[in-house]
């Protein structure tokens, strides 16, 4: 029976992995080494600002091990959602790291870059073909123009095209997480259902093992009607429960997992413990959508942040805290009537800082950690309002106050921290018109670079 073995070194490129696990993984003769580099989980800033949430030195460390191992065996390395958010600046950032390593280690290979950015004109011409993915406003011209980076989660097709063109290293922008693990399988004609389901588990590497870890390797072996999955590190085990439970992770519904162009149907999926630590998964179906749709992601700048952190220990003040904060907010509003559209938020740790209005037990502790959070249209406005708010609160004479020297324990000098640009998710929509993701192939290292 024909098989395809995929090695997933780590849950996110830059999270690291033990070299020993990686070596053990290589002993299974993988046909592909694939790694997911991204997520929207860390929030809108990274996509909007075009910076990675992983550190350059950490990403380089992982690739310094992966790239030479793959070149030595002449197997492809597939990287999805480059630089975390997978827009053009993230792709370029990762490309630079790859080229540094190629130069330092004297590696030569064909590199395919696949941008995931969606052209603004194409989107503006097709606004009526977009649909909000949940309770977010429909896309309009203004939102598109305000959004700094708009990407679409690509499916396997452009990655297959890059492999067809002979790429040794494929660096994809924003991609549906399982695609880099499934692309070679789809290219070789394996059923996309099991291939993508295997990708769904491999993309988090050893998180689906017991004990779970995002910083350790996982191996998947695909065959005719299913796949087997296991961690190369003998200290971890795949169990039916650990693998099945992972199908739930970060998804709305465990039975139907939507992706570009179709969904994974897990209603008839069967998990079997074939060996200790090793699970076999069969029965997952891929159901193609009638119309191919892509998920768009984008974030726009909403302002600049300044914040101040303070402790409050006075029980008389904690008792009055809500009304004090309301009064200070009013005072800020009156004083800065001319400043447009600033936002002032108080986070009260020890009261309801984590859950806010969802908090079922908002009983104050004996001390409260307060964050004064100001976002305004310019950094100067945010600085001004935060400073005014902090000094007003510091000396605010609330009813019953006895501690007239100051209301806040400020741990830092300067007390106000300038946090810079702030983004919000502005695009989270489906797009029903085709987008062409074209792999750009280049020779790295060797003659052409010399």
């Amino acid at each position, binding site marked *: 029976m024909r098989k395809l073995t995929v090695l997933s070194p780590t849950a996110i490129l830059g999270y690291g992995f033990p070299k020993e696990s990686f070596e053990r993984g290589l002993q299974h003769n993988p046909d592909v080494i694939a790694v997911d580099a991204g997520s*929207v*989980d*860390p*929030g*809108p*800033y990274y996509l909007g600002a075009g910076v990675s949430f992983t550190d350059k030195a950490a990403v380089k460390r992982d690739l310094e091990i992966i790239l030479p191992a793959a070149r030595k065996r002449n197997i492809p390395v597939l990287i999805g959602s480059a630089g975390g958010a997978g827009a053009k600046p993230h792709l370029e950032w990762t490309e630079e790291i790859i080229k540094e390593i190629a130069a330092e280690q004297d590696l030569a290979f064909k590199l395919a870059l696949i941008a995931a950015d969606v052209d603004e004109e194409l989107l503006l011409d097709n606004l009526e073909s977009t649909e909000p*993915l*949940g*309770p*977010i406003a429909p896309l309009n011209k203004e939102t598109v123009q305000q959004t700094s980076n708009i990407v679409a989660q690509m499916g396997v097709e452009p990655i297959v095209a890059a492999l067809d063109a002979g790429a040794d290293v494929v660096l994809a922008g924003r991609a549906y997480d399982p695609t880099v693990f499934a692309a070679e399988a789809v290219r070789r004609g394996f059923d996309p259902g099991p291939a993508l389901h295997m990708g769904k588990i491999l993309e988090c590497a050893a998180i689906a093992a017991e004990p779970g870890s995002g910083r350790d390797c996982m191996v998947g072996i695909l065959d005719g009607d299913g796949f087997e999955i296991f961690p190369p590190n003998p200290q971890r085990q795949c169990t*039916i*429960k650990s693998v*099945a*439970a992972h*199908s*739930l*992770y*970060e*998804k*709305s*519904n*465990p*039975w139907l997992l939507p992706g570009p162009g179709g969904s994974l149907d897990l209603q008839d*999926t069967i*998990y079997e413990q074939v060996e200790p630590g090793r699970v076999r998964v069969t029965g997952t179906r891929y159901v193609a959508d009638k119309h191919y749709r892509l998920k768009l992601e984008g974030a726009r700048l*909403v*302002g600049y942040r300044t914040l101040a952190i303070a402790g409050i220990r006075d029980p008389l003040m904690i008792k009055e805290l809500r009304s004090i904060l309301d009064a200070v907010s009013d005072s800020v509003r009156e004083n800065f009537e001319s400043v447009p559209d600033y*936002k002032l*938020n108080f*986070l009260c740790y020890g009261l309801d*800082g*984590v*859950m*806010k*209005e*969802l908090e*079922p037990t908002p009983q104050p502790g004996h001390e409260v950690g307060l964050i004064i*959070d100001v*976002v305004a249209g310019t950094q100067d406005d945010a600085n001004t309002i935060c400073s005014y708010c902090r000094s007003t609160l510091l000396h605010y004479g609330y009813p019953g106050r006895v501690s007239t020297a100051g209301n806040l324990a400020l741990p830092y000098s300067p007390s106000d921290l300038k946090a810079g640009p*702030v*983004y*919000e*998710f502005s695009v*989270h929509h489906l797009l029903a018109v085709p987008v062409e993701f074209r792999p750009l192939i280049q020779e790295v290292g060797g003659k052409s670079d010399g």
Partner: protein
Amino acid sequence: MVKQIPITDLAVVIRSKNSGPLELTFDIIFKDQQSFDLAVASGIFSPALFADLYKIPESRVLSVVEYAPARAIKATILRNTVAGSVGDTDVYGAQQHAPLLAITVPMEGDEDADQG
């Protein structure tokens, strides 16, 4: 007579996380088949339960699903604030599970225990 069993006696995982920036999803994974069956049979895991725990209208509870292969019950609700927007308190949504720890699952007490 009906006994109330703390969810923490039945579950090994009780977690929250974003499922995309607009949703919060909760996974309760039970320690064994018996605990899962008991939870399912109790009938308490409904949109009304999650609406009540999070003080939100039932219309904001998107789904409550039993997933036998993982001995899990999963619920998904709409976030009040889009992840990472100004005013959000938990970008990953990873600490919103706490109210679930207070769930108790009703079970008919067995005859022997009642008599004893």
